[in-house]
């Protein structure tokens, strides 16, 4: 029995035991931006601080895992009053829900360098399944640049309580764009 097990194990190609590399985000070169609509016109903002655990290998998608944590307090817009409004309890409610998190544990290759990440997004106290398409580009010096975008419905996450549940002034859809540069740290 023991011998047979060893024999079976020996049949597996060595590559399947390769370690999935970890990547660390370079904050200065990365951004998470959003574009919403107020009064039928776009309004922009971004999150200045976010961290991520990226455990990703295009050759081992089944063993890849990515989690991105966004510091909701770091929201930044061109106008102070707009930023303050987003921080308050009717919007992000950062004092109660300081972070948003996306955890992706299922990856599908769509084309060369094009992937789809399936996972769960938590904003405020709502967690919903989310699939995001992204493009990964190898860069020199063990760097990779990951870009993509998705459209979220703010009301599904309870962003905009009370009178803000109306979409006549602020649209439900918010486009989120990410551009992340990460450096390989192991593997």
């Amino acid at each position, binding site marked *: 029995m023991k011998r047979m097990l060893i024999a079976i194990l020996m049949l597996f190609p060595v590559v399947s035991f390769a370690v999935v590399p970890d990547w660390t985000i370079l904050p200065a070169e990365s951004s998470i931006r959003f574009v919403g609509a*107020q*009064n*039928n*016109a*776009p*309004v*922009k903002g971004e999150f200045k601080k976010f961290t991520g655990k990226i455990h990703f290998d295009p050759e081992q998608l089944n063993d890849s895992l990515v989690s991105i944590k966004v510091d909701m307090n770091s929201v930044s*817009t*061109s*106008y102070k*009053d*707009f930023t303050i*409004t987003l921080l308050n309890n009717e919007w992000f409610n950062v004092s109660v829900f300081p972070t948003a998190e996306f955890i992706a544990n299922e990856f599908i290759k769509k084309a060369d360098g094009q992937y789809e990440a399936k996972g769960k997004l938590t904003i405020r106290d709502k967690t919903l399944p989310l699939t995001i398409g992204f493009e990964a580009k190898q860069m020199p010096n063990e760097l990779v640049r990951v870009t993509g975008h998705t459209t979220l419905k703010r009301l599904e996450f309870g962003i905009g309580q009370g*009178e*803000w549940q*109306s979409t*006549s*002034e*602020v649209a439900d859809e918010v486009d989120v764009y990410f551009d992340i540069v990460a450096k390989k740290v192991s593997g």
Partner: protein
Amino acid sequence: MQFRNSMDRYGLIAISFHWLMAIIIIGLIALGVYMVPLSVSSLKLKLYRWHKEFGLIILYLIFFRLAWRLADRTPSLLGQLPWWQKIAAKTVHATLYFFMFIVPMTGWLLTSATGFPVSFFGWFLMPDLVQPNEVVRVWMVFSHKWLSYIMAGLICVHIAATIQHYVVHKDNILRKMLP
């Protein structure tokens, strides 16, 4: 009632421009004074939208109005007016035209500098005149506010002059601008 001006009274086109823009401008000033101190709410956003959209209407209309004024003759001021009153009337008129242009422009600059582009009734998006910029925004808040107050003052002078003509001179110049 004819479309064009005659030498002693305004025609239908000029009268329409005058009263339509008068109603919108007075409404915009009142709305502006009311909406600015409101705390952030969906009502405030709605009022700002109306203010911006109707402000843009003024900006569009002033070009057509000036084009029409240049194309058509201007009724002469009453002959018996002292020279300084003629100058005063012409100066107030010219200044009001200038304000009908500069006040909406500073509003447009203000909203661009804030990072809030403006949609014209959901039909099309106005281009941003400047990139979002806090220094420009603060300057435009100041300019838009004080130019509007000065414009409100000029409108009062303009109305007061009409009343003065009616009450003191009993010449009822207002009739020139009525259908």
